[in-house]
């Protein structure tokens, strides 16, 4: 009983935050769709689901997300091998750079991709612009890092001896991989794939910018239905579909994630140097480099173009408000705002995430307790799967009167970003906590240590590195967050992604150049944060 109470106590704050900033706004928006003129009318919502267009949208979402996931896994697994099982100079930098796309704002990536594959771009001859292939490439660009991290982490701690034994018995490398390594990696691959699928299925900017309007996913359709048509019934119908699908996916993932006893010792042998025999993974990693590097290179090249020549003019202009006062504040001010907001989002998501991670990793004594923990775990993943526009409009109509009159609050943006980063934080901390043998805590307790003391002596030494790493991830996510921020940000204090979006939307070659330069600065800042995290060697991100 006391255990359950402790559990509830720990869960109270995160659950309250989730309730106020997620459940309440989303259910507020959903009820707008279900209640028409004060009458409960689910029929209209159900009718939406039979529209041919709705079915087409759902079908496109499923197959584009599947294709994006497949590409990310096919590229990510070999790259994970090279980056986590082989040693070569510059490995840390490469790992950090490959993480940058994951946290770049989609506005930036959209422009970068279109610079590259647009009809006039260097890859224009491929005819990718506005095609489904471009969308799939964009999805893979964002998510290949998740696969590399998650699979790489599992691979790193894999006992190499079974594979060595198989090789000693005469099995070829491909055979060893297929029969020994792959089965051991399967849980990591499957869980990474399901998270990537989740990210792909809810991608918004990628589909809108790269699809050239020919394609609609559930996420973009909710946006159009809400902001343009005010067809709240249809939007509610699609939101429900999305929530149901994501709940199902999370349920399946949690089953697949179940691994052997985490308190088993793991080996982290010093990886061997890269050799000629690694050519398959070298080749694929090079492909990943091209996929991730080209759009970023396109950004950098574009940002250095001034008129018909080259120069740093666009970067120097970042201290101004753009040509014809396109902005209210200089880009440098926006960078400061972004950094400050990220600090707040970071401490918020860390404190919430730590509580959640502790709750979900403590050993359960009864079935009901285990179920409860599983439920809590899944609950905090749900924000991943809800459209930013649903959440944004939901804020406006539900948090609008005392005691929850938060529409004006400066806290809104960091809170929204913290919720976006929360799943990542939980997934970074939970594996570390799960790895702590509960018997150590029991031993500490039997020696007279209180729960706090036990936490400080047993958990904290294992946890501090993942904590700092999680802080880095949360910080980077906040830097790049655009969807929720664009909805809630206040005019006087725009963040970098917002400023970039503004600059692209204002005529004048200088504004466009500044947008590219600002994107490069944002990407570089993100990379710097990731590089610092990389130094900690925490095998996480996407260890879902």
């Amino acid at each position, binding site marked *: 009983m006391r255990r359950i109470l402790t559990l509830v106590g720990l869960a109270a704050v995160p659950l309250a935050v989730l309730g106020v900033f997620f459940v309440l706004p989303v259910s507020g928006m959903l009820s707008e769709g279900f209640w028409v003129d004060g009458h409960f009318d689910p029929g209209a919502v159900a009718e939406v689901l039979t529209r041919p267009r709705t079915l087409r949208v759902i079908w496109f979402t499923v197959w584009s997300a599947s294709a994006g996931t497949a590409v990310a896994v096919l590229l990510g697994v070999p790259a994970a091998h090279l980056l986590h099982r082989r040693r070569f100079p510059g490995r840390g930098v490469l790992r950090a750079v490959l993480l940058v796309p994951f946290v770049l704002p989609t506005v930036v990536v959209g*422009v970068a991709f279109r610079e590259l594959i647009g009809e006039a771009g260097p890859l224009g001859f491929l005819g990718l612009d506005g095609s489904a292939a471009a969308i799939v490439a964009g999805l893979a660009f964002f998510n290949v890092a998740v696969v590399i991290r998650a699979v790489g982490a599992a691979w790193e701690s894999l006992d190499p001896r079974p594979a060595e034994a198989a090789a000693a018995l005469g099995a070829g490398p491909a055979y060893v991989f297929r029969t020994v390594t792959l089965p051991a990696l399967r849980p990591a691959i499957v869980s990474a794939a399901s998270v990537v699928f989740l990210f792909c299925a809810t991608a918004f900017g990628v589909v809108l910018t790269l699809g*050239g*309007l*020919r394609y609609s996913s559930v996420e973009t359709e909710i946006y159009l239905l809400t902001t343009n048509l005010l067809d709240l019934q249809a939007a509610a119908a699609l939101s429900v579909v999305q929530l149901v699908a994501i709940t199902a996916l999370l349920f399946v993932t949690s089953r697949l994630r179940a691994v052997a006893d985490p308190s088993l010792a793991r080996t982290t042998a010093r990886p061997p140097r890269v050799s000629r025999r690694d050519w398959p993974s070298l080749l694929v990693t090079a492909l990943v480099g091209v996929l991730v590097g080209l759009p970023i290179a396109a950004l950098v090249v574009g940002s250095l173009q001034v008129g018909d020549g080259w120069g740093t003019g666009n970067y120097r202009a970042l201290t101004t408000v753009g040509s014809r006062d396109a902005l209210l504040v200089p880009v440098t001010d926006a960078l400061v705002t972004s950094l*400050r907001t990220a600090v707040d989002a970071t401490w918020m998501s860390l404190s919430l995430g730590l509580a959640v991670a502790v709750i979900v990793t403590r050993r359960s004594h009864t079935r009901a307790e285990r179920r409860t923990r599983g439920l809590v775990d899944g609950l905090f993943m749900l924000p991943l799967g809800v459209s930013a526009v649903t959440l944004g409009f939901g804020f406006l109509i539900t948090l609008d009167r005392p005691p929850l009159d938060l529409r004006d609050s*400066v806290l809104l943006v960091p809170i929204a970003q913290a919720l976006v980063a929360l799943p990542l934080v939980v997934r970074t901390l939970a594996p570390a906590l799960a790895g702590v043998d509960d018997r150590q805590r029991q031993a500490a307790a039997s020696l007279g240590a209180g729960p706090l003391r036990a936490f400080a002596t047993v958990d904290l030494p294992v946890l501090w590195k993942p904590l700092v790493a999680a802080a880095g991830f949360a910080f980077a996510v906040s830097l790049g967050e655009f969807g929720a921020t664009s909805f809630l940000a*206040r*005019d006087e*204090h725009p963040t970098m992604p917002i400023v970039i979006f503004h600059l692209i939307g204002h005529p004048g070659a200088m504004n466009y150049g500044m947008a590219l330069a600002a994107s490069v600065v944002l990407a570089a800042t993100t990379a710097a944060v990731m590089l610092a995290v990389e130094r900690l060697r925490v095998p996480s991100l996407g260890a879902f």
Partner: protein
Amino acid sequence: MRSLRVFAPVLAIVLAASACSAIGGDDDGPGEGTASGHVSKRVVLVTHESFVLPEELQKKFEKDTGYQLETRASGDAGALTNKLVLTKDNPLGDVAFGVDNTFASRALDEGVFAPYAAKLPAGADQLLVAGDDDQALTPVDKASVCVNVDDTWFAEHDVAPPTGLDDLVKPAYRDLFVAPGAATSSPGMAFLLATIAKYGDDWPDYWTKLMDNGTKLDAGWSDAYEVDFTQGGGKGDRPIVLSYDSSPAFTVGDDGTSTTSALLDTCFRQVEYAGVLKGADNPDGARALVDFLLSPEVQAALPDSMYVFPVDPSVQLPADWASYAKQPTDPWQVDPADIAAHRDDWLREWSDLTSR
């Protein structure tokens, strides 16, 4: 030693971070007036993301009226209107700017605005919304969405530029036109309305031909203009683009002449309105702000800050505008009530036509 090397950057980040939090450091923000309402009464303006009021004008308003101005800007005209509709029982602010003539009827039908007959500059009264008898919406600026052409491209390729909507479906202009989509952008919607005004019930037929002729549709104006248009920042390769009548004023080269021009027979006029929100906390301040938006200073600042024309014809335009931003005399028009009644059907049909 090893842990020190790891710790150093971490420590640096933590130190740097703890020194600056947005919440703690936000002393100079406008939130100040919020917390202690008695300092000065504030006016909250809800608007779209393209709204820009130069800082000195904002200060002038605050000095002249004693109100503190707070702006909340996000989304486009459509998102703004729908936000106002959703929150009409408890408005987001005191005054809204940016509902345009394609959304005006929805806002009026939903009773978002309170009546306020501001004193209009001579000539601006013809921009009032038909049927808005209470004068809840005050016209503040206007701009027309028009097809633009890259004159240098057509000169270099020795092709005569198109002159009207009919030309865009001709083989000579195959694969040359790029436009933002109607479902995702307000200029795109305006263009759809222009074709509906010109072709009536035959508009789907025109759009079919347009798509068959290789028209490219992008999500937003910036995608079309900056990436695909030959004169945009991305140096695209389509010399015909959907933009505004004011756009040629932004492509003036070193020699002082514009490299692009707007086709004035293809235009649809967008008028942007301001209005006092029903249930506003500070209706007096809201009315003062509506008046201020019509003042000669703000009207004169509109071209440079928002790329639109003032509704006050007596205001002097910037030099480039006077020479290169020509306005259509007789733009295509669709009755706002008609738009309100059919907009959803039109958009759905348009989406089905173009997303095949």
